[in-house]
């Protein structure tokens, strides 16, 4: 279907949008707590690792032109493996979206809707996803391409606006808790780039599959710069994030921006932009879930799934009983599931499929001789 094919630029936007959504909630503060003053070196390090990982993925996908991880799983282990991997990826997208939505909605409730039940705040996002889900994937991507530059500019403005309050000396000691903590324990911070997950799915959706390498590397590089800006703002500005937890750390940074007595309380503009970004993220994950489900069940039409995945996200978002549980899930479960699904499972499947293909090619060659 030509309607679902996306251009190279749109694919880059898609990757960035997935990666940066998590920075709006607690991710930068969690990274900061893990690596302390060594966070900038650590982010540069994990960005390089993420770029290397994306390059390896490109090499592994090269033997399977325009095929996604599910087609490759099918090739490797038949329909069973294809279905299993599909279900795991759907669970990953639904759970990470649900928890992210819950954490963001909790922040919104505290800041703007103190007397509104959290259910209705979450529901308003779910209705948005249902509407966007009923539209074509391409129109979704086009909207994301419009919103994303605003999100990036907002973080840039957040950095510039708080520049007078920065203490650049806070970057010292440059390795934080030491070499081992920054470069070995800190490797886990690669979860900041778990948006790489969409690289497993987008190959058949690309207009130009040959641009896969460019898409992956550019998307990660821009996201890395974005992440550095986010973390730097918190590192240079606040010392209390190492001791005190905040519901939306970047919102706190936004509330410090004031230009004279006229331009005050700009935080509401930031929050509006970030709400749109959360909607974009939820649209992408729910759309991806629909695509995966359609693929593993061989459905002819995607339309009946319009409400299914948003409702599943809604259910997951309502699961945590308290903010503490949703924060814990956001920090620990998301970390675990991202590392195991995105950086281990997907990679292993690709690697094994490549070995199988190599083995098959060799056998085929020997048979011909």
């Amino acid at each position, binding site marked *: 279907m030509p309607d679902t094919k996306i251009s190279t630029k749109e694919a880059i936007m898609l990757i960035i949008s997935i990666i940066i959504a998590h920075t709006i909630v607690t991710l930068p503060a969690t990274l900061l707590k893990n690596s*302390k*003053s*060594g966070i900038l070196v650590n982010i540069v390090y994990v960005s390089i690792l993420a770029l290397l990982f994306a390059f390896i993925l490109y090499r592994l996908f090269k033997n399977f032109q325009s095929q996604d991880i599910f087609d490759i799983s099918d090739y490797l282990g038949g329909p069973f493996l294809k279905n299993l991997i599909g279900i795991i990826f759907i669970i990953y997208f639904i759970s990470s979206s649900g928890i992210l939505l819950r954490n963001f909605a909790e922040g919104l409730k*505290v*800041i*703007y*809707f*103190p*007397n*509104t*039940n959290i259910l*209705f705040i979450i*529901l*308003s996002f779910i*209705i948005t996803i249902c509407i966007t889900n009923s539209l074509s994937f391409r129109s979704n991507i086009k909207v994301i391409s419009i919103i994303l530059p605003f999100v990036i500019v907002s973080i840039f403005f957040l950095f510039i606006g708080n520049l007078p309050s920065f*203490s650049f*000396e*806070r970057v*010292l*000691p440059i*390795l*934080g*808790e*030491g070499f081992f*903590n920054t470069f070995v324990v800190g490797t886990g911070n690669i979860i900041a780039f778990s948006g790489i997950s969409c690289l497993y799915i987008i190959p058949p959706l690309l207009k130009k599959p040959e641009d896969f390498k460019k898409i992956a590397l550019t998307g990660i590089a821009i996201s890395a710069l974005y992440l550095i800006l986010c973390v730097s703002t918190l590192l240079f*500005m*606040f*010392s*209390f994030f*190492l*001791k*005190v937890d905040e519901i939306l750390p970047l919102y*706190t940074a936004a*509330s*410090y921006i*004031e230009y004279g*007595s006229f331009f*005050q*309380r700009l935080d509401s503009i930031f929050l509006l932009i970030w709400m749109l970004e959360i909607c974009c993220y939820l649209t992408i994950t729910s759309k991806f879930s629909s695509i995966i489900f359609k693929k593993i069940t061989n459905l002819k039409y995607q339309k009946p799934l319009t409400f299914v995945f948003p409702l599943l996200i809604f259910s997951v978002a309502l699961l945590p009983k308290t903010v503490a549980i949703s924060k814990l899930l956001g920090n620990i479960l998301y970390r675990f599931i991202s590392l195991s699904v995105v950086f281990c499972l997907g990679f292993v499947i690709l690697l094994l499929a490549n070995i199988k293909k190599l083995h098959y090619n060799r056998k085929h060659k020997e048979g011909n001789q």
Partner: protein
Amino acid sequence: MKSKFIKIFIVILLIILTLSFNSSYQSLSISNIAFVVSMAIDTSTTNNLKVTFQFTKPSSVSENGSSDSDSSIVNSVEASSISSAINLMNAYVGKELSLSHCKLIVFSEEFAKNGISDEIFTLMNDNQVRPSTNIVVSKCTAKSYIENSKPIFEPLITKYYEGYTNSSSYTGYTTDATIGRFFNNMNCDTCEPFAILGGINSESKASDSTVPSEKDSNIKSNESAITGSLRSENIGLAVFKDDTLVGELTAIENLAFLCTRNQIDGFLISVPSPNDENKSIDIYLTPQKNTKIKASIVNGSPYINLEYTFTGRIYSMSSDSDYLNNDILTEVSDVCNSYLESVFSAFLYKTAKEFNSDIVGIGKHILSSFETSSDFEEYDWSQNYKNSFFNVNVQSNVKSGFLLM
């Protein structure tokens, strides 16, 4: 038929959403809200604290622009906590108190000496409190400080509080201390919190300095020689160790504090005349560069080197002044250097030896001496700051007078 159902479903959904969000907007409605302009916290004999709220009168500015003489309402309540005090006041005024326009939070000196951590955390937990809200420690009771804060040049109390600390950038006698920065410093390993020192002026107080020129700058709130219709004053700085008030700085020490933190555009200073010790010269100094701070650990003690650079022009003139003479200007510069060095050294040693409170934030400059964050935590900067040694070097270049030479 199907589209009809969808339409009905959408309408029902919209009604549900409107009703569910209505409760949040109803509580935020201006008719249900009383806007707090400032808040004062005192000790109480009958309960944990006494909280005073200052509100604006909605009709304080008349249509022709003139204002009422008393444009604010002050109400007090004794309660066990700030939240409880707000709750009680909600019941009393019949409206919900909003702190979103609160410009000032005042703690009495007596209250601050017992630690204000709980109050600061509670206030920062309230999303209505802006980080830019000024924080004051009052030498008198916090309530009387607020009662005496009556604007004389502005029609509204809120306007007065907005420009409250503007003079800090050109006098250096007060500081723009905010609750956001206070909270940040309170939880910081490399710095300590501070607040504006407030009080009420009275004619009976005088500085004990012997040199007349020093009397002008060795003052602080409640001890100044200022009298006027605006009775509240903000001169000096309240120094905290963690959350507890440990001391006060005078106007000249506050100036040294701002110069070290690079938060001043220019300031007037009286230095002893090179020719006559009983006379003084007024010089307007402008920082030429940011203060260079280098810190290291020498024999287990922090050794801090500070370099200040200023350019200046002479304000005070007399008929026999000859400020075109290069030798005289060099002499004035040298006197200025040694005077400022003694002032800045005295300030730094006072914060270290007397208060053991790194309000300047020198700790962040010593971070480079440690390999890891854990090493720095083990060193325990907040306890070791008192062992610091300072080497102050001031380079001022006094050029000439302004219009007259």
